[in-house]
Structure formats: structure tokens, C-alpha cells
């Protein structure tokens, strides 16, 4: 079960009001390679993993992604909370504001809402972990693009923490993949050589 700890994983910080930057950063909240997709993907894949290391890693990394979701939300919330209506309009956030005011919603940088098609839970453990490794790389790349776009050193610092975590997660999933391959390479089928069931 889940329990909430009233403390961010990292001190997410914003220096100035910046709805333009918020519009980009929100993609890691509800976009294709963001933290919502990551957490749901891992937390739903874990049910059908065949080895305990995989169940633990998916549970724990999935949980950490929820903590990252909270950090991204904190960035967006603080980037827009003091914005005037003019700031919002100038930043091109008026279309978002019309539907959500300054509330957090799951969209990408263009306002496209989150969709379950962003994730897969294919059942085949090798397939699932390979997808997870790709997901971590996509997230890493996205944080790099966001750091390029950021003109706020405090936001950049927080994005860098999240970027580092994606790299670590990629490493962990690589280890799970190796463990799965070991698991499948162990002989569990005991053949009866020469047995012919049709012989009388």
C-alpha cells in the first residue's frame, strides 16, 4: 500500500514567476515521457514479474517517480502562482488557464492531455523492462531539453537532480534485465530423452 511522507525528495526551488517556463516543465507532469507515465508504467508492470528483484525495483522506482511527480508539480505551481492575467496571456498559457486556472493538470508542453497509450504493460518481462529502459532515456533527454530552456538557476538545479535520477533508474533496470536473462537461461525443463509416447 502507499503512504505519503510530507517532505519532498529534493528541495524544489523557483526564483521568479515564469509561466512560459511552467508551460514547458509541465510536460514532465502529464507528457509522454513524464513522471506520471513512468510511475504508472512501473507500478502496473510489477504484478507479473517472475523474480523478486524485479518486483522490488519496479515498486520502489515507481514510488520514487511519484515523488518526482510531486517535485514537478511544485515547480509548476510556484512558477505560475504569482502570475498576473497579463503574464499568463503573454506566456501563451491563456488556453491552459481557461480550462484550469492555475491548477495542475496532466498535459504535455502543447496542452495535449495524458493518455494511457503513453505506457505499456505487455506482460513479457523482457519486453516490459526494455520499455522501462527506453522510458528512462526519454525522460533524461526531456530534462536536458528543459534545462536548455530554463533561465532560472533554481529550476535548472531541480531539473538536474531529476535528470540524474533517470540515469540511475536506467542503470537499475539494466541490472533487472540481466537478472531476468539469468533467470530464463536456467534449465527448468527436465527432458525425458528418447521417450516416444506413440510407441506401443
Amino acid at each position: 500500500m502507499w503512504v505519503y511522507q510530507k517532505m519532498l525528495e529534493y528541495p524544489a526551488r523557483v526564483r521568479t514567476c515564469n509561466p512560459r517556463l511552467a508551460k514547458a516543465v509541465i510536460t514532465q507532469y502529464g507528457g509522454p515521457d513524464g513522471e506520471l507515465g513512468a510511475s504508472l508504467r512501473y507500478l502496473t508492470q510489477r504484478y507479473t514479474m517472475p523474480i523478486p528483484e524485479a518486483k522490488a525495483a519496479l515498486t520502489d522506482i515507481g514510488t520514487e517517480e511519484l515523488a518526482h511527480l510531486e517535485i514537478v508539480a511544485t515547480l509548476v505551481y510556484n512558477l505560475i502562482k504569482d502570475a498576473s492575467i497579463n503574464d499568463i496571456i503573454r506566456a501563451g498559457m491563456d488556453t491552459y488557464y481557461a480550462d484550469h486556472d492555475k491548477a495542475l493538470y496532466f498535459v504535455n508542453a502543447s496542452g495535449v492531455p495524458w493518455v494511457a497509450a503513453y505506457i505499456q504493460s505487455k506482460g513479457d518481462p523482457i519486453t516490459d523492462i526494455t520499455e522501462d529502459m527506453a522510458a528512462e532515456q526519454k525522460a533524461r533527454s526531456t530534462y536536458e531539453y528543459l534545462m536548455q530552456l530554463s533561465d532560472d538557476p533554481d529550476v535548472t538545479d531541480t531539473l538536474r537532480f531529476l535528470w540524474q535520477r533517470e540515469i540511475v533508474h536506467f542503470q537499475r533496470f539494466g541490472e533487472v534485465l540481466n537478472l531476468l536473462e539469468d533467470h530464463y537461461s536456467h534449465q527448468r525443463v527436465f527432458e525425458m530423452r528418447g521417450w516416444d509416447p506413440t510407441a506401443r
Partner: protein
Amino acid sequence: MDRKQMDRLRHLMELEFVAIELNLFLDTHPYDRRALQDFRAVSQELMMAKSAYEAEYGPLLNFGLGGTSSSPSWEWINDPWPWEINWRRG
């Protein structure tokens, strides 16, 4: 949130992060004795620091897992919530 509380919370966050990192490592290296030792050490330090923080400032966890204090009120709901904390510099 005053500077003193912020510093103490910051310290907790650092300890918690080390625990999380070791936790993930141990998930794929369950027989690594050194990592297990390190995890146990940081866990211990984290639990003590968390207990001390909660006794003074109220619970950090809900559903019965948080520390209890002598406060006559339900402190869990108190502000600030994590996304409202302004981590002031210097």
C-alpha cells in the same frame, strides 16, 4: 517555516535520499553486504532524526506511521505543505 526548521527538514531530506538510493541498489544487489550495512546505518540515523523532528514540529507520515507528539490537535493537516515551502537561500 523558519530557518531552523528548514535546516532540520533539509537534513532529513538528505538522509532520506541516501536511504532511497541504497534501497534501489539493494533491490538489484540483495547480497551486497557493504550496501546493506550502509543502509542499516543511514536508516537508524534517519529514524532518530525523524523522531526528533516530529516531536517538535508534528508528524511527517500519516496512517499511523508518523511520530506522535503531545499536541492536543491533529497536526498532520498543518501548513506548510511541501509544495508551499520556500527554500530561501543564505
